[in-house]
């Protein structure tokens, strides 16, 4: 087979459908990555326009441009759009587009999940934009503190739009995180061991793990606040045993890691682009990896530094103040590694390098003001002033937007296959950087002079007038700069001349393919023996195109790739990906109906939509089946591998482990909330505790014992498999019954935060029993429709994870609820 005929055959197999339908059904990471990036850029424009409206209002004292109510919506939506609809999705889009190319594979681990996550993002973001256009936008600040966001002070639907829309978008983030982690660990080119991972992949791995750990507390907080707003469950109302500080803990358990979730991918871009610009390799690769991991973990020990002014005791504040100063150390290691890389190389001042230099200056200033506000006495002075607003913009724009602009100009030739020709970008750079510092340097100053955050107007004799005017002019200069970037990209993609394959002479695999990339990425999968494969072997691109790697001969219409061992990169299994499908967008739309049901208080719609989600989810799971005869498959170069659906740890097993990790963090946050309210909140103990029920206890424990044994029997082929599945189902049903009885007799959840928490814990356990039941039903359906022994065992291993987790949750929930009265 010639390289051209191979290209044609693979393009036909991997391409999306022609016309507009292609956008709806595509599951290819090239398409979805670009769609993520375009939609994130759209939301950046929306957030930017909101910022300009804010600056227009603050440009002069006593401004009548917008009233206080509209201004509240403006700053709330600006923060919300930039954080949730721009920054995180932009990382997701970048990772979705780039990772398979950097890793030397053909697509991400779960192509349909990528599409599902994308559509959840689009639909969730659309809810918020609809709210804004309808004049119903959230207006309680981007961190939605109760009691301001509670129904007493925000009775309209505005806050509900935030809670529901953002939770929907977070489903997308969790999906993307699972996708990214499994892809990096298991879907790489053969031979790509952990020490040969492209540095961006390390950063993406760390970031995705952080998303898995950080988002569940906010999802929990949003659910609890919505339950309070919709049904009066008083989690945050002090008079009934709640505490508004619980929200702050849950929010900042997410919110502070979020800062690093935004920064670390950008640092990954810097670590990738900077060595290429300096025509050398990254100095201290191991130290940079260690620093990224350290920053990730330390960021989970900083959340209380957003709560220094809430009256927490000194020792508590000092824990977090110390941890906050500590995070400067690994960040400094990365910065010194980058400076050292520049020192040992021969830097060329191309446009990506301009943005990296701007990043250095801006981020270091933002980092230093960060150390200032990490010190409690200073923070008490600067708290809630424009100084903090300026600091966070230095960190987020300097630490995220500038590196991503560097990345944009670095990878633009890869995305479009064209060389930069027009030089609008250089002018745009100066407008953006000078405009940015004009805006936010001034904002530090006015903050130190006492200007509060979120005020819509200020007196004419405050001494802030000129500074605010300078800040607003700077903001508009920056906006013109971003508009010019947009013009530059449009000119580039439409008019610039075709370019060479590797214009920067980079060493990573995304440059070892035709540009713009073909939908299959690599005509054959390369054997990697170096961290910079193109530097080690400049002919690798040609050899890939000739089909000299793995899977070089297309097999029917199959989208094939390889799974590897996570540590060594040794080939482990043959994978066949699903093709284009309407299932992801349909499932996402039906998921959205459940959210809309809650938002519009059409509660009858919620169970209906959730039933649809379950039905479509089962169809999704059942459609994953062997398409080749059972047994090993020839993957080329004399290697024969088992099929991924017949091995003990199939991709779905890895995905389930990560989903359960996020789930466990959610449950852990719920237990933390219960303990927090019990020990800290005023108005405890509650009027009445739940009495111990021996019957419910026995039912629950019986289910906990029977179900895990059942699923282990079901895994075996033979006369006990049917019995095993029945035992598992009975076990799950016993758990459902135990918790249904508990909920039925629990004190009214609206009476006290204790009762509300007990009911939520019971419902959580009940839902997980139902999920375990569904997984067993899927296993039974798969066996009934015919499956190989390996496929059955592989699927049963996935089910076992969910059943075991149900047992763990049931035992913990029984202890927390049934014995809570005794503990009092």
């Amino acid at each position, binding site marked *: 087979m010639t390289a051209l005929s191979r290209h044609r055959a693979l393009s036909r197999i991997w391409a999306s459908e022609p016309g507009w339908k292609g956008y709806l059904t595509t599951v290819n990471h090239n398409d979805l990555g670009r769609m993520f990036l375009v939609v994130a850029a759209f939301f950046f424009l929306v957030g930017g326009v909101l910022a300009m409206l804010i600056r227009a209002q603050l440009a002069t004292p006593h401004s009548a441009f917008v009233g206080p109510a509209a201004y509240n919506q403006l700053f709330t939506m600006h923060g919300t759009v930039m954080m949730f609809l721009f920054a995180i999705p932009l990382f997701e889009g970048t990772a979705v587009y780039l990772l398979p190319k950097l890793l030397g594979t053909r697509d991400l681990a779960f192509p349909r999940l990528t599409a599902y996550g994308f559509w959840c993002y689009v639909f969730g973001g659309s809810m918020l934009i609809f709210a804004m256009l309808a004049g119903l936008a959230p207006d309680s600040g981007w961190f939605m503190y109760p009691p301001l966001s509670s129904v007493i002070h925000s009775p309209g639907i505005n806050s509900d739009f935030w809670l529901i829309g953002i939770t929907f978008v977070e489903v997308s983030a969790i999906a993307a995180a699972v996708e990214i982690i499994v892809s990096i660990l298991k879907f790489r080119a053969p031979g790509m061991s952990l*020490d040969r991972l492209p540095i961006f992949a390390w950063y993406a791995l760390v970031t995705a793990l952080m998303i898995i750990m950080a988002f569940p507390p906010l999802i929990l907080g949003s659910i609890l606040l919505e339950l309070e707003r919709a049904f009066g469950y008083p989690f945050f109302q002090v008079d009934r045993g709640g505490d508004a500080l619980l929200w702050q803990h849950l929010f900042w358990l997410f919110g502070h890691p979020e800062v690093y979730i935004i920064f670390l991918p950008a640092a990954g871009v810097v670590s990738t682009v900077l060595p290429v610009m300096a025509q050398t390799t990254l100095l201290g690769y*191991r130290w940079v990896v*260690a620093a990224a991991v350290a920053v990730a973990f330390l960021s989970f020990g900083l959340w209380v530094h957003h709560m220094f002014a809430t009256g927490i*005791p000194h*020792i508590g504040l*000092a*824990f977090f103040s*110390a941890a906050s100063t*500590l995070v400067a150390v690994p960040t400094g290691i990365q910065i010194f590694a980058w400076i050292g890389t520049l020192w040992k190389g021969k830097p060329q001042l191309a446009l990506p390098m301009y943005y990296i230099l701007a990043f250095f200056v801006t981020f270091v200033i933002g980092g230093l003001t960060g150390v200032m506000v990490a010190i409690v006495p200073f923070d008490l002075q600067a708290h809630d002033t424009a100084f903090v607003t300026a600091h966070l913009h230095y960190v987020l724009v300097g630490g995220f937007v500038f590196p991503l602009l560097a990345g944009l100009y670095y990878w633009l030739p890869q995305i479009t296959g064209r060389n930069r020709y027009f030089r609008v970008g250089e002018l745009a750079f100066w407008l953006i950087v000078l405009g940015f510092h004009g805006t936010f340097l001034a904002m530090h100053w006015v903050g130190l002079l006492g200007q509060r955050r979120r005020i819509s107007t200020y007196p004419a004799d405050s001494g802030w007038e000129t500074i605010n005017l300078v800040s607003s002019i700077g903001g508009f200069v920056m906006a013109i700069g971003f508009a010019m970037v947009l013009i530059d990209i449009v000119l580039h993609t439409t008019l610039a001349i075709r370019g060479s394959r590797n214009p920067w002479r980079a060493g990573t695999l995304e440059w070892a393919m035709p540009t713009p990339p073909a939908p299959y990425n690599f005509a054959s999968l390369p054997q990697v023996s170096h961290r910079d494969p193109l530097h080690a072997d400049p002919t690798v691109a040609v050899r890939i195109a000739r089909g000299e790697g793995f899977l070089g001969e297309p097999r029917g219409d199959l989208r094939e790739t390889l799974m590897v061992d*996570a540590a060594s990169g040794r080939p482990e299994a043959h994978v066949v990906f699903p093709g284009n499908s309407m299932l992801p967008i349909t499932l996402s739309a039906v998921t959205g109906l459940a959210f809309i049901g809650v938002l519009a208080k059409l509660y009858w719609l919620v169970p209906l939509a959730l039933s649809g989600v379950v039905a479509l989810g089962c169809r999704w799971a059942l459609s994953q089946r062997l398409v080749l005869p059972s047994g090993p498959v020839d993957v080329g170069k004399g290697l024969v591998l088992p099929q991924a659906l017949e091995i003990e740890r199939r991709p779905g097993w890895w995905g389930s482990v990560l989903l359960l990790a996020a789930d466990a963090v959610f449950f852990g946050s719920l237990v933390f909330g219960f303990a927090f309210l019990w020990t800290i909140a005023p108005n405890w103990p509650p009027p009445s505790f739940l009495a111990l029920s021996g019957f419910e206890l026995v039912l629950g424990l019986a289910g906990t014992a029977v179900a895990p044994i059942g699923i282990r029997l079901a895994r075996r082929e033979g006369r006990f498999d049917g019995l095993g599945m029945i035992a598992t189902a009975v076990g799950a049903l016993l758990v459902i019954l135990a918790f249904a009885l508990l909920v039925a007799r629990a004190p009214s959840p609206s009476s006290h935060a204790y009762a509300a928490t007990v009911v939520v814990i019971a419902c959580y356990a009940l839902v997980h029993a139902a999920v375990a039941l569904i997984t067993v039903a899927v296993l039974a359906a798969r066996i009934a429709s015919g499956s190989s022994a390996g496929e059955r065992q592989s699927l049963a291993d996935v089910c076992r994870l969910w059943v075991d987790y149900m047992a763990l949750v049931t035992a913990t929930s029984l202890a927390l609820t049934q014995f809570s009265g005794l503990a009092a």
Partner: protein
Amino acid sequence: MSDIFRIMAGFLVWLALFSALYGLHGIGCAAGWQATQVAGTSLFRLALVTAAGAAILAQLAVPVALRSPRLRSPSPFVGQVSTTLAVAAVVALTWTSFPVAVLSACE
């Protein structure tokens, strides 16, 4: 996957111990331990300093374990990164727990 756990081990244990110390501080303040005198100091101070000392010892066990023949990674890269992080986590815990010995309790 075990290599990924080796890399995360040091700071995973740090996160658990740091959270436990903060939780113990909350429980101590809520229970009024600062008002109870034991061996010339408050029960609160005694409990937190003891817990911090035990936590640092537990944290020290991580780099030791990661260098042991049984748990050492076969990959030199993973071995170096995981040991570096485990030692850094010991320093981090010592630094973040020093307030229990010097600051006023529950104020």
